[in-house]
């Protein structure tokens, strides 16, 4: 793993890293199985349509609290989860709807959680920020920025401790990197990785903002991938708007981490199309043009182009997929609407595992 080592010990790895990013972006067209990419295109379309319904549900007062939609970033979670094995696990923050859907959680159960219903993915206890589907290896869904990071590091340790070859995937935002909750466990991951005891794939979803605060205004260095050098964690920056790039990187990195038990970090450069949350309507921190420019890099459109080129998609197929997404989203809403609220006795349920 000469390359790995150079990344570890030599922060000069910067240049090869960016270069590597390019290489991936171009080299990928041929190398990736495009057929299965069609499946993920469909998933991304569904997620996008699903988020339209969550925003509508919020406006209609059916969904409460904070609502953070994923629109614009789909290629990151889709590309990464595409290469995760069923037995693998992952953690993310509160912008988690698409992650749950991509992992196979029933759209109805996800929507029902947002509606605060008993049939929700977390029985209506968690809501939008705390989706959980442990049966599928999804360990949540957390609201305190940065505070879920150490959980994933410990979980990765446990996977190796128990002698499995599973890996743990950790998603975090650019803003989370400025918290002590990032620094302390990343150093632990670097240390444990040297013993092959930390099979952790770290994905920074760099969407350029933490609420209204841009990376330039919140991080002393803007090359976020390079921040992992302090922890001897090899890292690279990639185009997070291109599903094929993300997926090929995910395949290579997951295999490597699975084999070595050492952590690896990917900075996926992406963009959030919507406001930070439902309350962020005016977005005084960025102008319309900026958003428009990025919308032209829409990951769904980009993948659509790849698939058209490959002759795997045409207008008819696209229309069919959109109709299907329409139906899935509508049925999810209907399921959520019709589901019962949690029974009053649930107030005290799930507090402790044992009575005393």
């Amino acid at each position: 793993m000469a390359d790995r080592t150079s990344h570890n010990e030599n922060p000069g790895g910067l240049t090869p890293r960016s270069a590597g990013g390019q290489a991936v972006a171009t080299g990928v067209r041929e190398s990736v199985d495009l057929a299965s990419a069609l499946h993920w295109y469909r998933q991304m379309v569904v997620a996008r349509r699903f988020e339209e319904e969550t925003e509508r549900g919020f406006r209609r007062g059916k969904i409460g609290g904070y609502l953070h939609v994923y629109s614009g970033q789909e290629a990151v979670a889709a590309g990464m989860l595409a290469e995760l094995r069923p037995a693998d696990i992952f953690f993310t923050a509160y912008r988690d709807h698409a992650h749950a859907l991509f992992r196979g959680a029933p759209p109805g159960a996800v929507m029902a959680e947002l509606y605060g219903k008993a049939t929700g993915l977390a029985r209506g206890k968690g809501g939008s920020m705390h989706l959980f589907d442990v049966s599928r290896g999804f360990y949540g869904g957390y609201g305190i920025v940065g505070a879920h990071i150490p959980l994933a590091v410990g979980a990765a340790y446990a996977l190796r401790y128990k002698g499995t070859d599973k890996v743990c995937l950790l998603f975090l935002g650019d803003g989370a990197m400025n918290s002590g909750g990032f620094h302390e466990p990343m150093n632990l991951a670097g240390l444990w990785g040297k013993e092959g005891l930390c099979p952790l794939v770290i994905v920074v979803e760099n969407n350029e903002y933490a609420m209204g605060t841009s990376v330039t205004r919140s991080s002393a260095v803007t090359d976020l991938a390079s921040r992992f050098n302090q922890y001897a964690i090899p890292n690279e920056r990639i185009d997070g708007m291109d599903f094929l790039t993300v997926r090929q990187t995910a395949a290579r990195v997951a295999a490597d981490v699975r084999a070595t038990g050492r952590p690896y970090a990917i900075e996926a450069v992406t963009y959030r199309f919507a406001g930070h949350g439902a309350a962020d309507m005016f977005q005084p921190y960025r102008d319309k043009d900026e958003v428009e420019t990025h919308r032209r890099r829409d990951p769904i459109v980009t993948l659509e182009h790849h698939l058209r080129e490959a002759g795997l998609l045409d207008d008819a197929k696209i229309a069919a997929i959109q109709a299907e997404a329409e139906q899935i989203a509508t049925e999810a809403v209907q399921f959520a609407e019709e589901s019962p609220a949690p029974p009053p006795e649930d107030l005290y349920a799930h507090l402790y595992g044992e009575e005393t």
Partner: protein
Amino acid sequence: MPEQTYRDAIRSALIGEMDRDSSVVLMGEDIGLYQGTFRITADLLAKYGPTRVIDTPISEEGFVGSAIGMAMLGLRPVVEMMTWNFSLLAFDQIVNNAAKIRYFSGGQVDVPLVVRGPNGAGVQLSAQHSQSIEVFYAHVPGLRVVAPATPADAKGLLRTAIRGKDPVIFLEHAALYNIKGEVPDGDFTVPFGKAEIARPGRDVTIVAFSRMLQVALAAAATLAEDGIEAEVINLRSLRPLDRDAIITSVSHTHRAVVVQEEWKPYGAAAEISATIMEGAFDLLDAPVERVTGADVPMPYARNLELLALPHEEHIVAAVRRTLYREGASHA
């Protein structure tokens, strides 16, 4: 008297203090360019510039600690906690540094720091974002802990906090930002440790702070329809606690109900209840009642959230228990 919202009261107090004293600086997450999560600081970045209105990264321990250092050097930082839930990440800085530096330095430094922001439950913000953390700070010597329930108190207490020499935990409530109330003109201040009788009455004393004062006043109005005159005490500050005001009231009502939004066990109401018993045991005709939130993390589902929060009817029922000794709560 002119009316002002709780939000504008806080906002205008901040502007007033920044205008009269250049050592006052604001710091916090998204208080500038984003205009503040609750718009308390809207337009202030433009008005005062980035060296006085400091947008920070997501680094609660780091910026609260930095504010302590600024305060030790003579600035008067006012730090916004986007919500008090996040202060748990700065807990060590507040408890082990801000509260203690004056003491373990033998009095060599002042720490004129104010940390302010919304405390308590919102609407369906779920477990990690719906906590009322006052007791964590009220327990700690070296801190002042205030929880204004009205626009006038918010304005007067914030002025006192910013002009003082000690760290102040300033607990606002998101559900109060839009309430209106009369606010005196001029440069008035409200001292720490002085409770107010928000409504006089002879039959029972209701002690409350922050949003629960509004709920207590509603309960008192309902009780009045049955001829029960509750005296409602607006505590204003938890540390120092105005023990005398509470005891004086109870010594003529002989009954008391203490209200808090948070989990009952080891909550603020326990201290107030114990203080009443210690100070007015012989005068009590009934055990002091506590009305509190349910002892669970806040659930997301609205129906469960409503069950987890204390409401007017709980206060009314508790008052009736103290009057008629119904119920088994003290069997």
